[in-house]
């Protein structure tokens, strides 16, 4: 009994040990299996991450979908088995069909693949594609006609960028039953993330590009950017207008070379700037009546991967016509001051020296003449200084007018009488024509009217050698024709008066008409601006002035709420006029 009991005990013990061992063995297998699964998942995850990182690095500077798909297809083999990996991408006017053969396949395999992929693409885009639109590029293993295995496994992934299908990515195999859901999920994920990254980057680039384009487009300066082969990358409307090709679509560097007419060596200067990697301030050039200051810059890459690499060059044409004009006006003003102030003052000084040096006897006729010269010079200088001071007021917007009830007829007649002497001296007829219906009193600043009339009359006399100068005054009513109103005065202007005025209210019109040299159309626009005294070949000698009078008149009349203007026919005559809103004194 004891032996039997012992034996039983031993048997049970052995079984138990075996069971434990068996369990342990089984368990180890299970753990191994689990570990292996984990490992695969981990590997895939690692692969996924590696691909995404690689993509991230590369798309950092490339947004070329082509290149990104190449990266993906180039590394897929590490993880999925296939005979051929291929993609189709939409390009303008064609479909790019790129295949990489891991194993040799037959022509029939590829033709079938093409038909299937084109079918998917058509379905995705709801669009028909013709066979001859497909551009095929094959790499990897060679085509072997004898391998007549057909496509047995096939998987398509649409390539979507910015919510738009741009192509399909396909893996295919001669073996059947491949490509399970698990593998496909990861492939989807990779392609999806890559698309997202590209979409995001393209958005950013697009926004930035739009911003930049809008900026460059709206720039008043002409901007031209070229790559290192002098192909034009960016050219804005200002630059196109500058070379006289505002509507030309395709602009090349030769358009610039031709139109710059040797005034600026655009190619040479770009080359120099790119070579020295330094911005460069080039010359000023005159092109079609405009002055340009030219700047040349090299374009250096700022991205980490290609830091400092020269991408091309930029030429900026800065329009400095206005600055040059101002410079000229300043010079003219200085020259005017020299002539109108320094010379007469120096004359006075030299006379004083002559008298003090007893070269001139006090009772001689010369002495009398000298005194007259001093008087004339000092009056002229004083007038000029007053003009300059008035102008300063004009600039500060401080022209003050004090309208009072004024007899316009009387003011005009007095001024005409004042200038009678000068007109007689030149044998010119000077007269006044005043509308009989003109109100007896009108609210204006009599001093301002007097000064304005003086400017107009003295100018008219100065620039007229033969004929007459007429001062006309009348009221223009809105419902009447201004030409008829002038006619009814009983006078004729040498040149047509403007039919309409800016002020839409009854106005007092005062005009000074002459048969003088006239003003050219381009001259008319500058008449009332500061420091512009028009040079006229017909201008009599020694008759220069500060040229400020008309600018001051403009200031005075505008302070009345009125407007000034001039019409002229060269060689026939001019009419200078001002109009003031008609304001009558209130009866007390």
């Amino acid at each position, binding site marked *: 009994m004891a032996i039997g009991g012992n034996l039983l005990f031993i048997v049970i013990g052995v079984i138990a040990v075996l069971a434990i061992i068996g369990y342990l063995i089984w368990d180890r297998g299970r753990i191994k299996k689990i570990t292996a699964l984990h490992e695969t998942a981990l590997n895939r995850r690692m692969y996924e991450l590696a691909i995404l990182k690689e993509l991230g690095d590369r798309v950092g500077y490339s947004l070329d979908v082509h290149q990104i798909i190449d990266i993906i297809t180039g590394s897929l083999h590490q993880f999925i088995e296939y005979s051929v990996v291929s993609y189709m991408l939409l390009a303008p006017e064609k479909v790019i069909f790129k295949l990489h053969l891991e194993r040799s396949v037959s022509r029939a395999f590829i033709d079938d693949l093409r038909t299937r992929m084109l079918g998917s693409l058509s379905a995705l885009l709801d669009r028909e594609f013709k066979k001859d639109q497909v551009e095929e590029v094959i790499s990897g293993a060679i085509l072997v006609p004898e391998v007549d295995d057909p496509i047995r496994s096939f998987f398509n992934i649409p390539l979507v960028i910015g919510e738009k299908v741009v192509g399909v990515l396909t893996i295919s195999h001669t073996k059947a039953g491949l490509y399970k859901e698990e593998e496909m999920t990861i492939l989807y994920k990779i392609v999806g993330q890559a698309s997202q990254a590209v979409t995001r980057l393209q958005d950013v680039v697009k926004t930035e590009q739009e911003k930049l384009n809008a900026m460059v487009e709206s720039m008043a300066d002409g901007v031209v950017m070229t790559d290192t082969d002098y192909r034009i990358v960016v050219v804005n409307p200002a630059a196109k207008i500058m070379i006289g090709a505002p509507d030309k679509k395709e602009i090349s560097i030769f358009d610039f070379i031709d139109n710059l007419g040797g005034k600026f060596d655009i190619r040479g200067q770009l080359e120099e700037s790119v070579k020295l990697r330094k911005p460069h301030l080039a010359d000023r050039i005159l092109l079609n009546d405009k002055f340009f200051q030219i700047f040349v810059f090299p374009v250096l890459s700022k991205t980490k991967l290609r830091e400092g690499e020269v991408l091309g060059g930029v030429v900026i044409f800065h329009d400095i016509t206005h600055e040059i004009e101002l410079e000229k006006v300043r010079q003219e003003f200085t020259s005017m001051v020299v*002539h109108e102030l320094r010379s007469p003052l120096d004359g006075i000084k030299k006379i004083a020296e*002559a008298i003090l040096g007893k070269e001139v006897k006090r009772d001689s006729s*010369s002495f009398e003449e000298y005194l007259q*010269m001093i008087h004339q010079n000092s009056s002229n200088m004083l007038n000029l200084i007053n003009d300059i001071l008035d102008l300063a007021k004009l600039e500060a917007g401080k022209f003050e007018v004090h309208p009072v009830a004024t007899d316009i007829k009387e003011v005009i007649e007095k001024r005409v009488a004042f200038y009678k002497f000068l007109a007689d001296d030149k044998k010119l007829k000077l007269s006044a024509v005043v509308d009989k219906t003109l109100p007896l009193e009108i609210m204006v600043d009599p001093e301002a009217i007097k000064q304005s009339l003086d400017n107009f009359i003295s100018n008219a006399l100065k620039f007229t050698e033969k004929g007459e100068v007429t001062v006309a005054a009348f009221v223009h009513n809105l419902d009447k024709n201004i030409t008829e109103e002038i006619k009814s005065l009983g006078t004729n202007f040498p040149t047509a008066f403007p039919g309409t005025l800016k002020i839409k209210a009854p106005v007092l019109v005062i005009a000074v008409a002459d048969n003088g040299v006239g003003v050219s159309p381009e001259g008319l626009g500058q008449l009332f601006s500061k420091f512009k005294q028009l040079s006229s070949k017909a201008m009599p000698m020694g008759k*220069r002035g500060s040229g400020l009078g008309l600018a001051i008149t403009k200031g005075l009349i505008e302070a009345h709420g009125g407007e000034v203007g001039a019409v002229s026919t060269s060689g026939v005559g001019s009419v200078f006029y001002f109009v003031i809103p008609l304001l009558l004194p209130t009866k007390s």
Partner: protein
Amino acid sequence: MKKILIIDDDRIFAKVLGEALIQEKFTLVEATNGVDGLTVFEKERPDFVVLDMKMPGLDGIGFLKQLREKNENKIPTPILIVSNFSDLTQVSEGVSLGIKGYISKTEKTIESIVEDIKRILETEERLRQKTQLGK
């Protein structure tokens, strides 16, 4: 008696300088611009010219150019530019055209301008005598 031509549109300067020159026993002829200056020059053949730069019509430089053209590309008479415009490019242009001097109107008294004229005329005279002796 030496004859001096003053070409200047500045009446006061011409008058004051003219009177001073008359007192120094010079004969005087005048013009107020380059065109008149050329006519008077041809007619009077002065011994000396006082020339202004900025004048209406033909200016000083224009006068010099035309005078050279009419006289076998030479300035036949000593010329002194007396002007208010002391622009350096004009000075050098004047010198290249053969003037004897360029002085600023306001910086000089009439007396000193007269002295300059006399000095230039004396130097010219000595030079002429030398070349004549040399022959």
